[in-house]
């Protein structure tokens, strides 16, 4: 079957069967390392790893490795190891920023006899030979593909951040339209990138997002823009805005600021602005038009500036027209904080530009 389109289809199917799953509600008690792994009682869960890396000669790279899990069925699945209770899919991308090249691969699997999972016992999140192994504050990432391989070791400098208020990151007004959202915002990273048999020793900083939920967007919400920024002064910022069908910005848009000690500060929709500049890039594959320059300001923190990408073509193009494509790529920040120059790097994600995203409705 032409299920190169599987991921998003699954979300469609999944939405029919959500009744048996838990919703993300305030008051969730987080526990680590337990909560780094699987939450099968929630229908959808994902782990995003993104980072900006640099070789000793200054050659810059960005990478993304994302593991998704989504519960498939409301029916009684067959009594078999291979029963498809969940669909595991994963996206892997490498941005050769100086080489101006973007590689990306995706794959879908079922848990089967251990083909994919996110298992507390083995402390591993994996999909085939793409995996992250956790050991205390250390995470080992490995991913193999036809064109490139990643072998990275990441050391978390800060405790996990829990976004939102009272343990939930609200995405719409209705109760339960929310996720449990955890981040590791400063992962010092070192390792090897191999592209077509050429190896680069790299170092840099990565970011991990982990969300689990059952309901999320409302039908009126068509997509989101999200960014993570790691400033040079050891602080980080995460912002997202949800776009509505009528072009307005949803009031559930929010963000989090993490100070050098690792304490997080919740930002509401009114606390920041995230505005696209007219500078756009049109994907030749999906024909989606993405804004690639954004104005960012957080008045309460005195931060104002602009993010740009060194590589416009960082679209994760879906293999089928039935699934959503999205833009996820490395960005650079030029800004000021209280008049002082502030620079940083991060990742920007833009969804719903080819057509509306339907997620956990």
């Amino acid at each position, binding site marked *: 079957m032409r*299920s190169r389109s599987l991921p998003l289809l699954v979300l469609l199917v999944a939405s029919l069967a959500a009744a048996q799953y838990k919703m993300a509600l305030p008051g969730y008690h987080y526990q680590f390392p337990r909560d780094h792994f699987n939450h099968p009682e929630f229908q959808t869960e994902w782990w995003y790893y993104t980072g900006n890396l640099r070789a000793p000669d200054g050659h810059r790279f960005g990478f993304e490795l994302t593991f998704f899990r989504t519960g498939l069925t409301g029916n009684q699945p*067959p009594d078999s190891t291979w029963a498809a209770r969940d669909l595991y899919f994963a996206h892997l991308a490498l941005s050769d920023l100086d080489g101006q090249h973007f590689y990306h691969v*995706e794959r879908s699997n079922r848990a089967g006899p251990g083909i994919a999972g996110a298992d507390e016992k083995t402390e591993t999140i994996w999909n085939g030979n793409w995996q992250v192994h956790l050991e205390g504050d250390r995470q080992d990432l490995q991913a193999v593909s036809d064109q490139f391989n990643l072998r990275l070791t990441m050391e978390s400098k800060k405790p996990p951040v829990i976004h939102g208020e009272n343990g939930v990151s609200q995405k719409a007004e209705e109760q339960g339209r929310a996720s449990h959202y955890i981040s590791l915002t400063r992962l010092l990273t070192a390792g090897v990138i191999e592209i077509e048999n050429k190896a680069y020793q790299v170092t840099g900083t990565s970011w991990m997002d982990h969300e689990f939920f059952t309901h999320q967007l409302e039908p009126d919400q068509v997509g989101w823009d999200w960014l993570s920024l790691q400033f040079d002064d050891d602080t980080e910022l995460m912002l997202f805005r949800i776009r509505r069908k009528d072009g307005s910005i949803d009031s559930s848009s929010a963000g989090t600021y993490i100070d050098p000690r690792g304490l997080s500060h919740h930002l509401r929709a009114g606390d920041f602005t995230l505005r696209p500049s007219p500078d756009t890039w049109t994907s030749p594959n999906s024909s989606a038009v993405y804004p690639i320059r954004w104005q960012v300001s957080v008045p309460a923190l005195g931060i104002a500036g602009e993010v740009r990408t060194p590589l416009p073509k960082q679209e994760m193009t879906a293999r089928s027209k039935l699934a959503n494509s999205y833009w996820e790529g490395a960005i650079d920040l030029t800004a000021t904080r209280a008049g002082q120059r502030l620079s940083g790097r991060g990742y920007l994600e833009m969804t719903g530009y080819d057509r509306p995203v339907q997620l956990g409705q």
Partner: protein
Amino acid sequence: MLSVRLFYRLIVRPLLREPWRAALTVFAVALGVSVVLAIELAGNAAAGSFRSSLETLSGNTNLEVTAAGGIPEQTVATLERLPYPIELHARVEDYTTVADSAQTVPLIGLDLISESNNDSPQSRAFDTVDAENALQYLNDLNSVWVGSRLGYKPGDRIRLLVNDHTREYVVRGIFNDQNEGVSAIVMDIATAQREVGRMGRVDRVLLKVPDEPSIEEWQSRIRDALPSGIEVRLEGSGTAENRKMLSAFRWNLRVLSYVALVVGAFLIYNTISVSVVRRRPEIGIVRALGATRGAILLAFLGEAACFGVAGSLLALPLGRALASVAVRLLSMTVESLYVSSTPGSAALNLPSAILGVLVGIAVAVVSALSPAREASLVSPVEAMARARREYIARVHKARDLWIALAMALAAGLASRMPAVEGKPLFGYLSAILLIGASVFAIPAFVDRLSTLSSNLLGRCFGVEALLASRSLAGSLRRTSVLVGALATAIAMMTAVGIMVGSFRQTIVVWMNDQLPADLYLRPAGDESADRHPTMSPEFADALAKLPGVAAVDRYRAYEISYQGLPATLAGADLQVMRDFRSSDFVSGRAPDKVLDEMRRRDAAIISEPFSNKHRVHAGQSINVPLGGRNVSLRIVDVYYDYASERGVIVIDRMTLLRYLPDPAPSNLAVYVQQGANVDAVRQEIEFAAAGRNVLVFTDRDLRREAIRIFDRTFAITYALEAVAILVAVMGIGGALLALVIDRRREFGLLRFMGAATGQLRKIILVEAGLLGVLANLVGLGLGFLLSLVLIFVINKQSFGWTIQFHWPVAVLVGALSAVYAATVVAGLYPARLATRLNPIEVIHEE
């Protein structure tokens, strides 16, 4: 220019004068070539490519991971997680029968989620499938995807027989069939595992590894990551193994198909010889007028080549037609003896056509070499001395006998030589030497016998018989060739008849020992040597509790690959063998002793073909990959087995379950309590089996079925023999016709002197009859010797069976009488021609 005219005058014109004789020769060549062609084409279609039908939807993978009885499914995860850029396709593989059309097709379980990861041919095959809905059918046990060739539409219901149950499924999508002729049913791997009873295992994982560094390097890297009992081999090894397994079968078939051609060669030889003898005066005149020896040689070789070309061209459509009949017969044989196959169509391709024509011309020219050379040696002076050649034949009788003796000795030696790469090349050599020996011995034999018999014949059948007999001895050379041709055909028929008859009798005797139980059960569906559908173990347990049932024995078979050849590994309740007799084992040991050594141990008995194929014997050990482990099995003994040409390894069921813990049996044997009524128990069993598709056989049914399969298997052999005989009989007819034309003067004289037409007819018919008797005698003797070579050398080396020699008297008497009658009938037309001669005219010619 001269040579063309020469060719026309010397060759074409005489031929045109006797169109019937020319046509007969051409037709004989055509038959011979068409049989060779038909077997080649049918062999290619039925067994040639020997891509196993399970290779469908296998795409462009280059390695495969397998183990006997399947590999543990965890292996799939291990492979998926190896840090190499490998494409993976895990498969559950079995067969299913579509209930409505009774068509048996591969049933393939694929991971329909991961198949979408690669842009492989198998995922493209699914491009027509409605992706949007496909996903929700994944966990639905009723969902199947069906190959386009089966003719279903999405939403249709389809009833499938899998193992011992038939169930209705819903067609969720249609995919494009890949292999020529092979369709398939696809299920999601989860459903397939469940439906075919392969929980916890998959049958194969196909891999696509990168080209760099090398396929061998990848093979060893992957092997290193897996337990020792799991095999990593080149994808398509199964096909290669099938081919290897079938090569001996095809070889023997091919050799047999050449028999008709050899007989045809005799006829060409005969025809050209007759031409030469009859045209001696003309040759002499032409030579006197300045034609060179080379020109004469070329002219006669040209005649043969014409026969060859005409015959082979006629053979092309004939062979194609015969092939389409043969392909059905062949594929049934292949299916019941070797491996599941879907025959392709027997298409006439250019290489085969060229091969056919070349073989036809080559055979014709080669067989004409000797008479053509003889013609070229004719000197103008002696051209009129017609009797000289016959004289030479007489003179060399003794020398020919010595040659015959030497060839016979060489044949004896060749029969002692071992096989060459599994092919009994020396066996064939021995057979050819025997035929050669008999050909050289025939002149002496004919001479002696006709001398001895002429008086007797004269006394019994009158003066006409005496004349006939003398005339045969008189033209000894021609008679010898005719007897040689017919005798060779008869010998082949006799030899194959004796071998097949012996084989049949051996099997009948063997089966009497082999089927000690009262009732036998197996799942319904087509039988094939490499398919082992199973029944539910609960059903077996329930049977044991039925009233009147004394015991139920279970037998479970798996397909394995042992040292590059397919084999069957079976676990049997040792009771199955409690009725074994000492004579069933090659060692002749008491069965109790043998079975005691096997009980619960890593010990096995192997079938005779297995022992012969792999040259392993009692006391040695074999390494068999079992359930992901490498198990060393000690061979306790070798047993006779005629059920399959594939090798069989039998171990204790308890031992098998230790490595492959699937209790489902492939066959059951039910012993009825003493005094209980077998029919009543059978009814009980059929009642208990309600809802399952199992077949119940009595021992008698099974014997009949086995013999039926056996006869079907050898049908093609008989057909080939029949064609050879037909060619030979046609030769007799043609030769007698030549004889009549040749002896016009003699017959005219006889008529002139007052012989009645009836008397002439009698002379011709007695000659035909005598030829038949001589050929039958020589053929029978030679056939007996050839049958020994067939049974004890060629069969043993190709297939590894021990066959007890047995004369199939009824068959032989029947066949030989038929041949005899046919030779006499072949004399009818020439006899009629002789009676029509106008004596006045003939004498007037003088």
